[in-house]
């Protein structure tokens, strides 16, 4: 059992899902409440990682994060570190890769809020920010929890993008899914099995949490 890879995976999944909370919410709010030219293109771009082969996404990210690229170069000049083959690069790639898993449930949850609810809050004297925090956020909460759990589980299980961006550096970019792949190649079946079981268990528990949470919320609100 590669505990170092386990730690990298959990850290990456946690950081990614926490980062996706504000990013996903901002994007979902924008898509749910405004009509602008290019809205469909933006939504398609966010959803793209769902259908794109991870290697293709990984390739473009690798090129984009490379120190010779604009973004990669900017990062090097600011921090002195390269993005490719580093944990930070992996974190950044995971945010992009798990974006649809965060944005879609948040968007669906925000879209179910009728416009009158928001207007009723304004007419009750609540500012737009107060309306967001006291009305929209609590109503959309089940969708937001779903988004967080899904992006956590999805990041935990990602393989193709990690391999392309992160390589296989122990303690830095070697995640549990890469370690499983290594173990299988080295015929260490027992180790591969125990690590696979751990990933399976985490995925099952987190998805169960989503279902239980959504059901208990709907009981309170809709009884």
């Amino acid at each position, binding site marked *: 059992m590669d505990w170092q890879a386990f730690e990298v995976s959990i850290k990456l999944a946690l950081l990614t899902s926490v980062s996706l909370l504000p990013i996903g919410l901002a994007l979902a709010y924008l898509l749910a409440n405004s009509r602008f030219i290019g809205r469909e293109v933006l939504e398609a771009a966010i959803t793209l990682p769902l259908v794109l082969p991870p290697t293709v996404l990984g390739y473009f990210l690798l090129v984009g994060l490379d120190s010779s690229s604009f973004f990669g170069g900017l990062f090097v000049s600011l921090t002195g570190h390269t993005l490719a083959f580093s944990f930070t690069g992996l974190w950044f790639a995971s945010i992009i890769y798990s974006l649809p898993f965060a944005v879609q449930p948040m968007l669906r949850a925000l879209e179910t809020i009728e416009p*009158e*609810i928001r207007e*009723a809050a*304004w*007419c*009750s004297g609540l*500012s737009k920010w107060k309306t967001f925090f006291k009305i929209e956020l609590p*109503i959309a909460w089940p969708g937001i929890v779903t988004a967080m759990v899904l992006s956590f589980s999805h990041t935990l299980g990602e393989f193709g993008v990690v391999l392309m961006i992160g390589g296989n550096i122990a303690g830095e970019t070697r995640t549990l899914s890469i370690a499983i792949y290594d173990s299988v190649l080295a015929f260490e079946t027992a180790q591969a099995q125990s690590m696979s079981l751990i990933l399976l268990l985490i995925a099952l528990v987190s998805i169960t949490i989503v279902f239980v949470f959504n059901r208990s919320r709907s009981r*309170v*609100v809709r009884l």
Partner: protein
Amino acid sequence: MLRVNLQQSSPIPLDVELNCNNGEILALVGPSGAGKSTVLRCIAGLHSAKSGQINCSNQIWFDSNNKTDFTPQQRRIGMVFQNYALFPHLTVFENIRLALAEQKGAKQKIDHLLKQVHLMGLEQRYPSQLSGGQQQRVAIARALAREPEVLLLDEPFSAVDKVTRRKLYLELNTLRRSLEMPIILVTHDLDEAAMLADNLCVIHNGKTLQQGQPDQVLHRPRDIEVARQVDVRNLLTATLIDVDGGLKLQWHDYQISVQQTEGLSADQAVHWTVSPAKVLLHQRVRPSRGEHENPVSGVIQELITLKGITTVLLCIDNANNEVIQMDVPEHVAMRNELTIGDSITASILSDAVHLMPD
């Protein structure tokens, strides 16, 4: 006092002028899509018209000339939405507390509001645990919690059943006596408007056509357009003629005396209307003196009784099969043994005849 004056040509055409005094209910009536809700949204600050002014309690909320446009938060309005728009994740108590103008003494204020709308004991319920009528009461309490300068009601009775609606009418009638702000009620139900409102404002295709007391608007519409909108039941056309120096209506073979002749002249084509309650049945058993006032005769085509009033559809003799409706109390219809196919006579009260120039 609320004064509204709005004009725009798109996306929804508006040409609106209405006034509502403090403590008064003004019903904004018109068919679906007439622009009623848009006007209400403009008053609330949820929609900005292209030009015009909205003035409430001597404060300018909207003025296109100097680009004043207060947000809904700045306007101090109480709004009851058609589907009530209660916050589903909050209890009745929290729904109201969120809208309180001042959080100090919240408990007492909320108790008072709940008492006002007869909702004591339901503070801890969620909106989904309430009936339609109870939800409407919460919506009203929440709207009042802000101590609004104007109360806006957007078809507040359309989402409840008829029995509940009658109960809520009575409640609103009682509640309004304790309210001092102007109240705007949007409805497409003329009976509802006539029952609850002090003034009616008829709106069609975004244009306000006439504002006045219900009796005035419903029985003395300004023109044919208003008459059609308020569903005047006897809407007929005739020509004015000069008879011995006075004006009378020449309607088929009948010469009908009228009292409202100001601004009208002989040979002028007019639309005329008479309230069905002002067409009096000549009793068969006991003739009376009033029978020579605009007598008409005809055959009963249909009889419809509703809530103690019998509506008689009378196909007038020698009038090209035109029909006049008359309302008689049910017991009068029974005593006179009115049946379909009977020939009867009736009088059209001359002071109830209302003329509208073509």
